[in-house]
């Protein structure tokens, strides 16, 4: 295991759990420690004796303690211990309680891959929904036309509920993709001096989507998939694996960030393939107040894995189908773009294929971080061109780079770049909260 303490800390559900884990990193607290290629394990002396185990390829954990935090402090302590004092965790055959767990996990994984809905129930459900979505979009179209007839100036005095009511109607119409766009639009009025322009752009793109959905039969099959996904038709994991591309590569996990509303949080994890140079975006969801439970590639690591892309004219959203090796920290240069111009060229190509994309993984090589006197932050390439960073402070990244060229990873939304990581001096450092 080669994970650094920083990477292990990103596994923790919160900072308190990470700190509690740190306290258990001394071998004094443990007995019967052991490891093999697949797992780490040990018995931790707490208020009782707890059996703690960690599966290595995906850092999934299990512990006999009653904690509802996941992973618990014992599992984190075991990981810290293995990272800092590897000699204390000797190679050994797993005891029964570890072997049984590993076998059960392997069985579950096989079961998941074979389980699927029967095709007939699926099609019955979907034809009923198809009608609902159509009705919903028709009524939204009328509402939009009404809005444009009266003019956006009338929107200025409308409360947020003006938009949220429409969003709720789209949820009822089972078009959650449209609903999410409306919720995002609700935040635009008064958010910046040029909000009318941004509002018009967003409404226009929404209208384009509705238009495309209506005329989907005229589109090629992959663009149809894009339009349907953007509207809110979801695919099960099995469907993704069955219908999308599965790409095997060594995936660099550049970093992740979380956005959310009052009910649901979404975590965006950006991956970049070393061989293919492809960008993959993994989404996880969790109700507010609950941690994300999915095992995910750890920010700052690279790992051989099979990644399945959702079918698309420009495949971007993906899930990790299976990991093929244990993760190791990123040390070498990123498989990124040599200049900002080259990167934006690729963004233009992606937008041309799939106009509903609104975020793009980004890795720029040999760029410098610049803070201008007005307090704005930029990333500047060797040709002298720059992109603005998301408003915020990036002192950590500036400290690491010292104003010299580094590899910088982030997420581009068409207007600003959100930094996620910096690679310099043979090490990769995440920027921003990675939890």
């Amino acid at each position, binding site marked *: 295991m080669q994970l650094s303490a920083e990477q292990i800390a990103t596994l923790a559900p919160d900072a308190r759990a990470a700190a509690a884990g740190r*306290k258990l990193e001394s071998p004094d607290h443990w007995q019967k420690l052991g490891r093999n290629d697949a797992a780490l394990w040990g018995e931790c002396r707490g208020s009782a004796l707890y059996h703690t185990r960690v599966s290595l390829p995906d850092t999934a954990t299990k512990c006999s303690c009653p904690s509802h935090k996941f992973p618990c402090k014992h599992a984190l302590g075991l990981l810290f211990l293995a990272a800092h004092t590897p000699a204390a965790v000797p190679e050994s055959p797993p005891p029964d309680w570890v072997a049984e767990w590993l076998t059960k996990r392997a069985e579950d994984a096989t079961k998941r891959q074979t389980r699927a809905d029967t095709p007939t129930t699926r099609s019955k459900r979907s034809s009923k929904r198809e009608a609902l979505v159509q009705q919903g979009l028709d009524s939204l179209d009328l509402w939009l036309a009404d809005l444009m007839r009266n003019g956006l100036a009338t929107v200025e005095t409308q409360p947020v509920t003006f938009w949220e009511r429409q969003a709720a109607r789209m949820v009822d119409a089972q078009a959650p993709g449209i609903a999410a766009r409306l919720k995002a639009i609700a935040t635009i009025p008064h958010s910046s001096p040029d909000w*009318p322009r941004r509002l018009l752009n967003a*409404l226009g793109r929404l*209208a384009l989507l509705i238009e495309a959905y209506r005329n989907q039969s005229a589109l090629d099959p992959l663009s149809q998939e894009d339009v349907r996904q953007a509207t809110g038709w979801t695919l099960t994991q099995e469907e993704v694996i069955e219908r999308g591309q599965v790409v095997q590569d060594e995936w660099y996990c550049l970093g992740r960030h979380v956005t959310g509303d009052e009910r649901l949080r979404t975590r965006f994890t950006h991956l970049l393939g070393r061989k293919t140079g492809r960008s993959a975006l993994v989404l996880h969801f969790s109700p507010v107040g609950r941690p994300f439970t999915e095992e995910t590639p750890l920010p700052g690591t690279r790992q051989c894995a099979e990644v399945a892309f959702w079918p698309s004219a420009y495949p971007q959203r993906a899930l990790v189908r299976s990991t093929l090796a244990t993760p190791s920290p990123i040390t070498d240069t990123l498989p990124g773009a040599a200049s900002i111009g080259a990167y934006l060229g690729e963004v233009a190509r992606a937008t041309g294929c799939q106009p509903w994309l609104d975020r793009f993984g980004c890795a720029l090589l040999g760029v410098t971080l610049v803070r201008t006197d007005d307090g704005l932050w930029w990333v500047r390439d060797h040709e002298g061109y*720059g992109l603005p960073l998301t408003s915020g402070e990036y002192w*950590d990244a*500036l400290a690491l780079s010292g104003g010299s060229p580094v590899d910088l990873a982030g997420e581009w939304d068409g207007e600003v770049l959100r930094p996620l990581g910096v690679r310099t001096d043979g090490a990769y450092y995440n920027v921003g909260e990675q939890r």
Partner: protein
Amino acid sequence: MMRTGANDNLLDTALTGASRTTLSPLRTGTSLDEIFEKSPVAEQERALLLMAGARAVYRQAGVRPRAILTAQPAPPETAATCSPRARDLLDHLLSQNRDSLLLEALKRLHAADMRLPFNVLPHMLALRGAALRDVLLPVLGQRGIWLAAHNPEWQWVRDRISPDIHASFEVHQAAWEDGTSPQRLAALRQVRARTPEQARAWVIAAWGAEKADVRREMLGALSDGLSQEDESLLENALDCRSSNVRACAANLLMRLPDSALSLRMRERANAVLRYEPKNEPLRGLRKLTGALGRGGNRGVLRVMPPETLPKDWTRDGIAAKPPQGIGARAWWTQQLLSAVPLRHLPDALGTDPSELVHMAAGNADWGAVVLEGWTHALSPDASDAWFAALWESCRRRHDEAKVSEDCGPAWRMLEAMLTLLPAAHLEPVLRAELVAAQRKPVVHRTGATSEIRTDFMSRICARGLDLTAKPWSASLGETYLQSLRTYLVRARDVPSLSPGSWMGTLPVAAEALPPACFDQALTPWTLPETDDWLWRRWGTAVEQFQDTIRLRKLIAEEIRA
């Protein structure tokens, strides 16, 4: 992509409303217009939205980066940095706000000629507190100094690297002549540090025009670089009407052993105290003192305070009004004796410190006052004999006190002495206290409703451990751990024990034990397994103690040359 405004007819139309617009043809102003011409959209509202949407996508795809000026990169580093494990440790200490451990780690880093790793710099630069910043400065490296220059909140780095001492004299002079009060005093202090006579000249010139508050502040600034040359200015200040200014001037003059004021104080002390060697008419008293301490031929210390406060005493800074709980004459005497360095007394009175202290203790009327005055006159450079004699005497008074009110003044004196004791004296005292604690019986203090059993540690010990410089010596650390273990074994059998001082010393010891004691501190501590609240608290306290020791052990292992 920020083209908005007058010539954006899509946005203008959208704002006013498609219904109110005269039918000027909608255009995106891009090559998209060809598509819309080929397949026109019937309704105006829909056309407007679709054109705006298409144009937004078009512009997103065609976004162009802006030319950005380059910035000066950080100069290359000269020092090496610490191990990744140490870096991780520093991160941990920062996130847990363990400032004192951080201080220790930074000092070790400096001693090993290393610099901080880059990634912790922003958090380190944001730290507050002069002690931390002092040790931070030499380990910031080129990168840290470069980084600090980018953020106004980290200006302190530049201030410390090139402090105002290097600012030219003219700048200070301008500040002195035209500045606000704080600016003037800052300039005065700066100049005093380099050219004390110039600062003195400024004060002399300004004296007549200033109010009492300012006068006092100006005298305070002269405390640095004080010399005999300042005497006439200070002597003059004794005629000020403000008692604060007088006290301040008197304090400075007392620090000049050859000043007229110091001589006057000594003369007054000589008049107030008289030692009379073995004196036949006082045989009765001799018997008494012989019974109290060592026998033999003893003289008498006579104390003769003035009946009324002389004018010239007031002028020399002695306050007339006593604080509560002490008589006026005692108060004057105590102040007077505090002002006379102890080294003058044996010659002036004709006997040695131990005899003097012994005699003072035997003086029922004024002895306590004299001893307290002498204790305040103690300075770190006073002779061992004085320390030993005064300590012994206060100690006895403290231990013999029956009621807690009686031991109050003695404890105050002991505490004052503890802070003055040079390390070479403090440590043996503490070791002896710790050893004694192992044998001490449990003390019962019975109150009206409940019985409290305090632990066996004296407050001298608890306070002294607190005052001892960190890290402790190995022998003090070993004695401490040994006594603590003995205490924990003995305390098991004591019913309804109170937490007391021992538990309070654990956090202090955790940060002060030297590396040589780490292994002994980490060997398991056996506490009784009971649900008793006190022992549960002990369990937590010991756990925290060991956590801290483990961290410090790691610091010592990971950060070294």
